[in-house]
């Protein structure tokens, strides 16, 4: 069965998370050490700055959960009691749902953020490479990817900006359309201004003019972005030609006054000017927003947009959970069919064996057969077995879909005198059986 043990930004403070987090290079060895344990059949470790989760398949959920808890405590040198109350354990359907929700960004700190899907892909690639995943986790993770993909494309969960810098870029797009070839004047070379500039540049803004009271900072900033540093006193004349202004100084009062912008309105020939004021206290006189074709957004305005967008994401999340549920059911369906697979395989083998023995017995009576005849008899036996088993197998699969095949599978094994238990079939063989079974069903 599938078990997920982990902690995230909700369940554990950063002090605990950072202790448990694996560095990328540590993961392969850790996976191999974990996979050596008897309780664990398959495993995968997802470790990001917001969550550490271990996904395993085992035959004994409780033992597996305990094993993973102990493993984490030992490996990361944390006292087990320190983890109490922070680690969550999800089993079977809940574990599947949790993984799918994580992949879809539904469990992220910022609802709908897309990064996590890439991180899961990475974690899966590592586990696959060291060989700690098998047919069940493979199928599970793939299904999770489809769920995430559907959520992303069919709901608005990742549509609108939920960070200040992205909200600013979206607004700039609403004003200018394409940003390529546009220019920006950055006032104050601080961290926030840098972040906003980075996003603007990533979205096509080409020309950057930067000014700061601190000349070296302006020069540094300009070098990083391939921009042009200008003296503080001479910066305002650039208001005439730029499209966007980013203001983020640490000044205690207004830096950009209404009259500064008013002066250039005529020279700008009604080209729109988008001013982003991310400084607290504000750098830009709010009255500037009243000037024609000038659009001023301060940090609160941008936060307001983000709040709206988060509201949208929360609404989209309801729909997304419904989609995830369909994928969870689909995976559960697949897994249930797996439970009866060993019985089906054994049943078929058993009857074929009877056939083979009978053929041998008759051969003595009939004498030597030509290869063609032998093959024909073999095929005949196979066909008979197939026909006999068709209805019982279909019945068993139907029960498996409903989730109550367990008892019947045991009954079948009793009747036909099969020794196997559902869990000790070869995983590969089981996979095949399900595949071929499904194909026959369809034909």
């Amino acid at each position, binding site marked *: 069965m599938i078990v997920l043990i982990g902690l995230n930004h909700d369940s554990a403070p950063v002090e605990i998370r950072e202790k448990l987090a694996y560095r990328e290079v540590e993961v392969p060895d850790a996976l191999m050490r974990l996979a050596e344990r008897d309780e664990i059949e398959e495993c995968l470790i997802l470790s990001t700055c917001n969550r550490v989760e271990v996904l395993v398949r085992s035959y004994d959920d409780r033992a597996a959960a305990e094993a993973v808890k102990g493993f984490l405590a030992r490996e990361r040198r944390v006292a087990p009691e320190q983890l109490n109350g922070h680690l969550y354990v999800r089993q079977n359907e809940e574990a599947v749902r949790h993984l799918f929700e994580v992949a879809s960004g539904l469990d992220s700190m910022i609802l709908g953020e897309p990064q996590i899907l890439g991180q899961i892909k990475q974690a899966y690639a590592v586990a696959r490479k060291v060989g700690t995943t098998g047919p069940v986790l493979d199928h599970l993770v793939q299904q999770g990817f489809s769920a995430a993909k559907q959520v992303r494309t069919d709901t608005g969960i990742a549509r609108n900006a939920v960070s200040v810098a992205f909200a600013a870029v979206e607004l700039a797009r*609403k004003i200018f*359309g394409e940003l390529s070839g546009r220019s920006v004047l950055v006032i104050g070379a601080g961290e926030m201004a840098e972040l906003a500039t980075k996003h603007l540049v990533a979205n096509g803004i080409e020309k950057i003019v930067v000014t700061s009271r601190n000349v070296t900072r302006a020069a540094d900033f300009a070098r990083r972005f391939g921009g042009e540093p200008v003296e503080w006193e001479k910066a305002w004349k650039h208001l005439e030609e730029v499209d966007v202004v980013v203001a983020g100084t640490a000044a205690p009062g207004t830096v950009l006054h209404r009259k500064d912008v008013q002066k250039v309105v005529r020279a700008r020939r009604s080209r729109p000017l988008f001013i982003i004021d991310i400084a607290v206290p504000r750098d830009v006189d709010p009255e500037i927003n009243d000037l024609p074709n000038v659009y001023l957004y301060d940090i609160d305005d941008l936060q*307001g947009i983000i709040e709206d967008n988060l509201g949208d994401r929360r609404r989209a999340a309801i729909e997304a959970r419904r989609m995830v549920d369909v994928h969870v059911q689909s995976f559960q369906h697949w897994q249930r069919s797996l439970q009866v697979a060993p019985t089906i395989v054994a049943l078929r083998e058993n009857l074929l064996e009877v056939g083979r023995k009978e053929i041998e017995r008759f051969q003595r009576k009939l004498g030597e057969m030509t290869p063609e005849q032998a093959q024909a008899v073999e095929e005949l036996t196979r066909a008979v077995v197939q026909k006999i088993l068709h209805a019982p197998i279909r019945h068993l699969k139907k029960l498996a879909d409903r989730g109550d095949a367990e008892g019947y599978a045991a009954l079948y094994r009793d009747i036909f005198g099969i020794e196997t238990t559902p869990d000790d079939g070869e995983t590969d063989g089981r996979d095949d059986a399900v595949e071929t079974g499904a194909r026959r069903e369809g034909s």
Partner: protein
Amino acid sequence: MELAFLAPALLFYTTGVLFSFFGTTRDSARLHRLSAVVLTAAWAFHLMAIVRRGWVSGGVPLANTAGFLLVLGWVVLTLHLLVWFRWRVDIAGLVLPPLAQLMVIASIGLDAGSSAPEPHGATPWWFLVHTGASTLGLAALGVAFAMSLIFLIQDRALKSKSSFRLLERLPSLETCDRIGQDAILWGFPLLTLGIVTGFVRTMAVYGKLWIASPKQVFPLVAWVLFALLIYSRLARGIRGRRSAYVTIAAFLIGLLTIVGIAR
């Protein structure tokens, strides 16, 4: 009677406008595509109605106001579809197709009241140039009107920072401005041609140039406004909110010409 074509055309118009409306409120690209498909069907039936009308009357059906409106509506829809397929300006679906549909309905209404046909004083060739240029010109300016309206809504929304929800569905300010400018640059020469040929007709019919009828006054006022608009835009770079207001006023005044024709 071309109603056999106009009835399905109107049905498609209504459906297309509804799709466009719900496409906007639900932010669904699929509904907008559906709207474009349905409106294309409306366009086809509308065209068939025009052809049928021309067939019956034995010429381009611009002989009276009803015919003029029928053709104008069709041209407006044509421009809308062109703009949509070229730029995907979904929001225009809320302005131009209803405008075209209104023209069709007005045309049917006028037909029922059988407005007097225009006096055929001028040569049919002049007449055709006059009505054709006026129709195309007004339709192009109609596109500019729609873009200006959208520009103002967008501008207001950006300034007030309140209705970001609506903003999502609107094209960017610069897009509105560019399409609007293109439409004016196309529409203005056509309007000019329509007015000049109109004077030629008046001269031929009444024996004088100026008869001070609304169908002379309104287009002239509109023409002056558009001329000022183009001058201030090209020569002095004035655009944005102020030119959007002027565009809207100029188009509405230009539209009043139809009142003059109908009188």
